[in-house]
């Protein structure tokens, strides 16, 4: 349609425009709109923003920069908090797997009886072999 408006349409398209009332109407509407647009662009001349506009823009720039710095600082402080000041429960949960891994590593090197003896010693005190009938103490001597 635009090409027809500017006179660069193909011959069959121009012929169609002459015979089709609907398309001719659309072309007329386009012509009218483009005239209106051309007049508007000819008549009103844009101008750069004045002092108030520049002032507002400067504030906008300053606010954007302050927001970016605040976001960065907030993110940085949260990052530090996650490393140092985690709640106790979270800290224990984090470290538990490490302990169990250590136990597995130790158990691979030490006999089970030695681990058991150390456990009884820690938890109950005294001789781990006080009860010789304990089936869990085969290593007592």
């Amino acid at each position, binding site marked *: 349609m635009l090409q027809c408006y500017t006179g660069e349409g193909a011959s069959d398209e121009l012929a169609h425009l002459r015979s089709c009332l609907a398309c001719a109407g659309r072309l007329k509407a386009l012509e009218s709109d483009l005239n209106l647009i051309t007049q*508007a662009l000819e*008549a009103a001349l844009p101008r750069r923003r004045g002092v108030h506009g520049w002032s507002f823009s400067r504030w906008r720039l300053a606010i954007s920069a302050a927001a970016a710095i605040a976001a960065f600082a907030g993110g940085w402080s949260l990052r530090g908090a996650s490393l140092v000041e985690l709640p106790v429960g979270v800290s224990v949960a984090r470290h538990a797997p490490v302990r169990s891994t250590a136990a597995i590593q130790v158990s691979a090197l030490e006999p089970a009886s030695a681990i058991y003896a150390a456990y009884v010693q820690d938890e109950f005190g005294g001789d781990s072999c006080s009860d010789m009938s304990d089936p869990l103490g085969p290593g007592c001597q």
Partner: protein
Amino acid sequence: MGKVDVLPLEHDDFRDLYAEHRARVLRLCRLILADADEAEEVAQEIFLKAFRFYRSGGRPEAWNKWLATVAVNACRDRLRSSWWRRWRGRTEEFDEFKAHSHHSAEESALQRETQRMVWEKFGRLSARQREIFALRHFEGWSTEEVAAQLGLSQGSVKQHLFRAVRELRKGIGKEL
């Protein structure tokens, strides 16, 4: 733009050339830059280049074509160099609207609103779309000439023009 008045007398031809083409070059710059102040500056630069070219004996086939080409390139350079200034604030103020005196107050208000909407939409078009629209509709260049000047295919020029017109029609409440 009054600096041309200090030209030596032997450059009367150039003074005529300036008088003949100034308004057209300024309009083209305003359309591409969508900024009246910058358009004034760029138009001055263009005529300075034109004067140097003229003084060195340059005589193009058609001054209007030569000036339009120089204007497009100068505006493009200006847009590249001042991207941050344009980001800082979009054009929103307008000089006096030329409303027809025989219109009623209501009609004038409507006219102003239409002009504002059209300029707002026009300012939001890409620089390429503004260039193509200005060269095609205001300078009267053919699609082929615009494509050759901007280094684009004719199909690309048509596509840009179609999109530009569609956006501008939205500005006046119409759809393509």
